[in-house]
């Protein structure tokens, strides 16, 4: 096995281990904000995992996945944050009139 492969395996293992600890944070909390941040970190870790896998599988197919993940992780975190701040995600001007 090439030394690069070994390195990638090690990195993968570390990242997945990191995801485990993040998952522990998601489950444990204690506040929702902790969970949301942990989820965001899981998303970033996922990006790294996908990138490492692309090297390992020797393919460029998953580059879109990386892009998409980064966008979604951002949007998701923003959505959660807004929800936590204001209790809603999409704000309606009309709601004020009612």
């Amino acid at each position, binding site marked *: 096995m090439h030394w690069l492969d070994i390195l990638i395996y090690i990195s993968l293992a570390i990242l997945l281990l990191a995801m485990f600890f993040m*998952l522990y944070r*998601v*489950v444990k909390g204690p506040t929702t904000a902790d969970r949301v941040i942990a989820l965001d970190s899981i998303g970033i870790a996922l990006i790294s995992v996908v990138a490492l896998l692309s090297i390992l599988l020797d393919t460029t197919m998953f580059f879109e996945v990386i892009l*998409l993940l980064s966008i979604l992780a951002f949007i*998701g975190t923003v959505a959660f944050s807004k929800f936590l701040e204001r209790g809603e995600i999409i704000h309606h001007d009309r709601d004020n009139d009612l």
Partner: protein
Amino acid sequence: MSVLHLAILLPLLAAPFIPFLFRAVKRIHTGWFVLVVPALLFAYFFRFIGITSDGGVVTETVRWMPSLGINFTAYVDGLGLLFALLITGIGALVVLYSIYYLNKDKESLGHFYVYLLLFMGAMLGVVLSDNMVVMYMFWELTSISSFLLIGYWYEKERSRYGAQKSMLITVFGGLSMLGGIVLLESMVGSFSIRDMIANQTVIVDSPFFIPAMILILLGAFTKSAQFPFHIWLPDAMEAPTPVSAYLHSATMVKAGLYLVARMSPVFQESSLWLWIIVSFGTFTLFWGSFNAVKQTDLKGILAYSTVSQLGLIMSLLGLGAAALHYDGMDDNIFMVATIAAIFHLINHATFKGSLFMMVGIVDHETGTRDIRKLGGLMTVMPITFTIAVIGSLSMAGLPPFNGFLSKEMFLKATTKVFSMDFFALDTIGLLIPVVAFIASVFTFIYSLIIFTRTFMGKAQFDKLPKQPHEAPIGMLIPPAILAILVVVLGFVPNVLSNTLIRPAVESIYPTLVEGGQAVEVDLYFWHGVTPELLMTIGIVALGTLMFFTLNKWMGIYNRVPYRLTLNGMYDGSLVWSNKAAYRFKDNYMTGFIRSYLIYIFVFMSGMLLFSMWWYDLFNFSFSEMAEIAPYEYVLGAVVVLSAFAILFMRSRLPAIILLGVVGYSVALFFVFFEAPDLALTQLVIETVSVALFLLVFYHMPEISKKEARMRFKVGNAIVSVLVGVTVMMLSFMTLSNKSLSSISEYYKENVYDLAAGKNMVNVVLVDFRGFDTLFEIIVLAVAGLGIYTMIKFRTTVQRTKGEGEHGHEAKK
């Protein structure tokens, strides 16, 4: 379509015009128009006597559903013609009677005559159809029209009760009969009765012989009010009296007798046939006459007497089967049973028809049918009294009326069991004449009650709702004609013997007639001191004695509590089945979706596990499995742990987040297994659905947001583990039992050559299997539209209810 078919269908064809005539011609009673139909048909069928008395038959076929072997084959032989003449002849008299009985201004005659014509046509169809499916169709039509006629005065509660009861019982029998017909068809391969008679040996040897026979007999017994199915007939007396006279004495209740007589050539080889029919018939004979004595309603007496007389005819038809096993001289002494059955069938139609009409007159002119209020009408209504006496004495079996002749023949046939040395008739069969004797005594008693309590004794006119007087002449003519027939047939019975009875008996014994045995009907023979004459004298003596001591032994009738009587059991079973069905429904239809889900899951797992066990599919092989990479273990653990953790979350928001984790991990699995398109889609969809869950969460009412974590239920845990195990087993099983290779090789080879693409997943989606994609687009469109309309609807509701109410939110 031949003239014969038109004749059978004429009542049905005429029925639609009746309501129009009733509306258009107010001045003339609608019955006069209706009267034309049976009169015309009687004249038409009368001409057939010449053909059938020479042993001829008339067959006409109209193709109806030839591919199913169902054709409307009209078949006129002696038996069918006898019934056709009874139906049309008494039909004409009943219509004439009803013209005077029913008031044209107060009653809805349009309905009445439509139902009556429907019934008449149906009855003709029953007796003249050779195809059993067509016969069954007409059979059910008689049930339906009888139901309508019993419930004619539908505003009365008793009428509706009687109509429902008769419908339930006769339709139960009719459906059983249909089962018998289907069984017979499966044996013979034809629905034609003549084919069945021709293939009688096939049927006797078949394992379905007994089921078919019992099912057919169930139909006959329910229709002909045999014990224990007789209970509908007394309740059917709520119908107008012409209906009772026509349907429930002369015609419909004889449809069962017709069926037994018609199917006799098929079944009568078997001893079971003889025993079932004779035992049920004899017991019905006794039970009906025994119960008739306690009735206080004239129609009630007549109803039970009809039950009893039908039992008599039924037992005679059963005894007639013995003729097949009698290989003696030319004079087959057991044929007398069948001859007596046919003869008594005619006699019963005449005297019972006249008695019912007599009761109708009494009811019409005094306002009551209760024998406790009636009495002393003899001088006021002399003609009605005469009719009543003739009818009753004929029913009691006294000379010189026709009932005497048939009763003598009946007793003769029952005493013949002494000379039968087969089917154990010479041992237990000896009960038959004894029961017949006792039943005849009761028959004698209630026959006396009918006319003595009504017409003799002390007059008590002040108790009657109306001042009694003699009926109008038109109302008296039909019962008078029948009473005259009773007398005429009593004196010159031989006018029937060669014209109607012999052809009818010959159609019950086709094998004997072909075998060279002659059916000889000689009704003159009623002289000489025979055992049956002594029995008649004994009946009269004992009957008279018991009649005068009636008050001393009437108490025995009140011994049985209502709950244990047959009517009580019928009512109880209706109530009970209703209650049981409700309780059953209430127990399993809880209205909670969790109960239904448990049924579904348990059933699914149970069925799958059972069938895997049944076919022995638990031998898994893991040889085809790929090796599992270490990072797949880790990711698998992430998925399992987060899915498991969802169950233990205190509130819903962390559960939603964990669900997101599961979704993203699955996306990562797609990456591991090299499915980039799936991974992309999964990520986007997961994000959107988590956002949607948040939306729903936001709209939840406060109270359920605070709800503590899911409560643990053992049952639910077991079911969920069961489902998980089942699905796992199923996947292992499918993986280890792969028998065919995948067709994906084809796609791999042709994805670029045929479809000009390199992304195989996308080519499959839009090119090789584009149709699925189209309809999934439609699914999304429908879902979008659905959400839009639900939200629109919700806002309008909310506006009417006012702000701040978040009770009923759309789910998605």
